């Protein structure tokens, strides 16, 4: 199947707008682990903003500093580094924040950065957190936020521009020392301030220009064609930048494709992801949820990463039970269970990964991950009694064997037979091996919330990023007609210490569905599939 428009709904502030067809579905199956070593350009832009504060619209100054590469190659991902967002709110704004007892303020920033190449655009969200600062008695308030930002890759030749857009500032006001710290309602308050770039901002908020393409130095290390191949398998499997010749001819006008924001770019189109719904064989209960999950798994031996396309997971949400007594926390534990769901089987859809085996032979494998038992999801919610800060730690334990369906080495198909898979489940070091023996993959995610501010991080219901490290066991049953491919696969893939990062989307609760409306962010489609198709992150 050919790549299709990628305007999948992703109803959040970081929603990506794309003007280009065939832009985002082409995600990297193999992500170069090293970027081109070129010079860097240091950027510092001071921009006028207008912020909506309780007393009205007030001017603010936002200074953004970051380092960008001087040039980049088409398809080459790079990450702006040293990103600092400094927000200076005027004295009038400080007066708005000066609630009784408020002495200090903690801030987090979310800056929309427009990334454009030729006429194609995408949006990245640059998140930053600031150290707590004292609220000044007089004069302006300056907040300095730092944080990591998404990688970006230009899709063709042409200048890649970065421009600052809307800015949201989450502010948590802390009580003065010695003031009441007894309960949530004693919190002096918190608010989210939305700011827009002032109309008179120089160059419409331009932060940096990175020339891409001709004349740019080449990447080192991992293989990549000069321009992405831009095709997609029937399952939506990615195939970016691979010189394997399997792609269909590139459509015209690809030079206009959107730049690729690797960490919060666009999601694949719904037509390109497998359905995710309960059915007669899998009837829902009143605690049934469904969600998509997608992400990358590094394969260290191959110096690359395999991309798992959005895969359907059916979840039975557990009921929170009181956790162990703790003098400082109120604790609730929840155990939920989940299954992958693809064509009535407990497995992922087939996905392709292309690597350079032994640094020279391109190997393309089509694989699935199959469950050998239920996936168990343990969530522990801890409410700190001193300030009602809440944290939810979630461990997902999944017994999954990796099955190889097809294999091509140097363009030549090799018959792996019908029983080619890892000997055991992919394994991780379990933090609680006494209670969770046996081989399984462990992924971890944390969600947090300061009273009065939005929750952040991974939460089973609303999704987020889960990460872990896995060992790939030896392969068995690979090959036919006397040709034993076990050793080839084991030698080139199996091994420890492979980083895994999977992003789960918002769940759809079948018995309490939330459909998109002006009042509500959509959680379910009309036919009770997950509304959100998440985007893989690295």
């Amino acid at each position, binding site marked *: 199947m050919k790549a299709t428009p990628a305007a999948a709904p992703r109803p959040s502030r970081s929603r990506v707008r794309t003007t280009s067809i065939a832009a985002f579905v082409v995600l990297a199956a193999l992500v170069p682990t090293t970027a081109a070593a070129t010079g860097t350009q240091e950027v510092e832009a001071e921009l006028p903003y207008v912020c909506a504060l*309780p007393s009205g619209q007030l001017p603010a100054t936002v200074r953004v500093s970051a380092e960008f590469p001087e040039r980049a190659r088409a398809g080459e991902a790079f990450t702006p580094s040293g990103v600092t967002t400094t927000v200076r709110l005027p004295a009038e704004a400080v007066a708005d924040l000066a609630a009784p007892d408020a002495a200090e303020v903690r801030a987090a920033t979310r800056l929309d950065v427009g990334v454009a190449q030729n006429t194609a655009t995408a949006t990245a969200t640059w998140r930053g957190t600031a150290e707590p600062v004292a609220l000044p008695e007089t004069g302006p308030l300056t907040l300095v936020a730092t944080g990591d930002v998404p990688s970006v890759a230009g899709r063709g030749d042409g200048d890649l521009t970065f421009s600052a857009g809307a800015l949201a500032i989450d502010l948590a006001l802390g009580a003065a020392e010695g003031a009441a710290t007894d309960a949530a*309602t004693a919190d002096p308050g918190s608010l989210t301030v939305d700011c827009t770039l002032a109309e008179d901002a120089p160059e419409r908020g331009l932060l940096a220009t990175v020339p891409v393409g001709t004349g740019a130095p080449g990447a080192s290390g991992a293989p990549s064609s000069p321009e992405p191949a831009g095709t997609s398998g029937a399952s939506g499997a990615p195939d970016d930048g691979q010189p394997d010749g399997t792609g269909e001819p590139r459509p015209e006008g690809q030079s206009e494709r959107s730049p690729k924001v690797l960490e919060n770019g666009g999601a694949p189109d719904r037509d390109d992801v497998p359905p995710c719904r309960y059915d007669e064989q899998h009837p829902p209960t009143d605690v*049934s949820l469904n969600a998509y999950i997608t992400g990358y798994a590094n394969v260290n031996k191959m110096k690359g990463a395999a991309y798992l396309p959005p895969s359907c997971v059916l979840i039975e949400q557990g009921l929170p039970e009181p956790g162990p*007594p703790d003098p400082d926390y109120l604790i609730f534990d929840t155990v939920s269970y989940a299954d992958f769901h693809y064509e009535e089987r407990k497995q992922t859809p087939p996905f392709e990964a292309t690597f350079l085996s032994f640094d020279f032979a391109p190997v393309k494998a089509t694989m699935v991950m199959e469950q050998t038992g239920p996936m168990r999801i343990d969530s522990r919610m801890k409410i700190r009694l001193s300030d009602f800060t809440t944290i939810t730690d979630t461990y997902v334990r999944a017994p999954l064997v990796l099955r190889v369906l097809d294999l091509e080495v140097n363009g030549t198909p090799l018959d792996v037979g019908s029983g080619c898979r890892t000997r055991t489940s992919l394994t991780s070091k379990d933090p609680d091996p006494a209670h969770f023996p046996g081989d399984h993959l462990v992924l971890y995610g944390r969600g947090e919330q300061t009273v009065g501010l939005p929750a952040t991080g991974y939460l089973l219901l*609303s999704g987020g990023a889960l990460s872990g490290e896995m060992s790939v066991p030896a392969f068995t049953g690979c090959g036919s007609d006397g040709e034993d491919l076990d050793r080839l696969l084991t030698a080139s893939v199996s091994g420890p210490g492979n980083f895994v990062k999977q992003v789960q989307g918002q769940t759809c609760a079948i018995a309490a569905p939330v459909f998109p409306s002006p009042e509500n*962010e959509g959680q379910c489609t009309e036919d009770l599939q997950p509304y959100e198709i998440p985007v893989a992150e690295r």
Partner: protein
Amino acid sequence: MKKSIRRSALVACAAASALGLAAVPSSAAPSTVWTVTPSPSSFKAVNVGNIVLTATIPMTCTTSTAAGTMASTTGNPGDVADITTMNFGSSTSPCTSVLGNVTTTSVVPWDVIAVDYNASTGVTTGYVGNVKANVTAGACKFTVTGKASGTYTNSTGYLAINSTAGELVVTNPVNCGAVVTTATKPTFKGTYAVTVASTGAIPKIVGSNP
């Protein structure tokens, strides 16, 4: 046993501090005539700062809006306004908690009830009554009903809601486990800027005892 003691303590703390904030000096004689300007009028309200709803765990809404009608009335308490639209969250900014995103569907109308008026500050003390909202977080569903104490300040047009523990109750909790039960005492805290829908002016509420 130990756990339940701790949870009671937590609720007590919340109640104590909420009471402290809600206490406003009473005027000498209770107001029985409530003059709303303009009257009658349609109003709209938008949150100033984030709204925090707590049902054992706190939930944050960065966007919340309300609309309705207000009019002069007599009696004490006096029903000075009907809230006919009450939204928590929006399509781009859902309410969040560590349980996950929270969807709140208000069952309107709610009432704004005036009880006391301080002529020197222009602050009316009272509560939002007839509160009813259906809340969901994943498979967890429950209904919150009751009232929420608050104040209205003529100079700012701020309706500050700061409910005390016990004013709101939970009914019909389903699939919420131990986190939300019928023993849970929800609270509703947040400030709304109220304006006359047609003019954007700040409406006034004045209580008197002729």
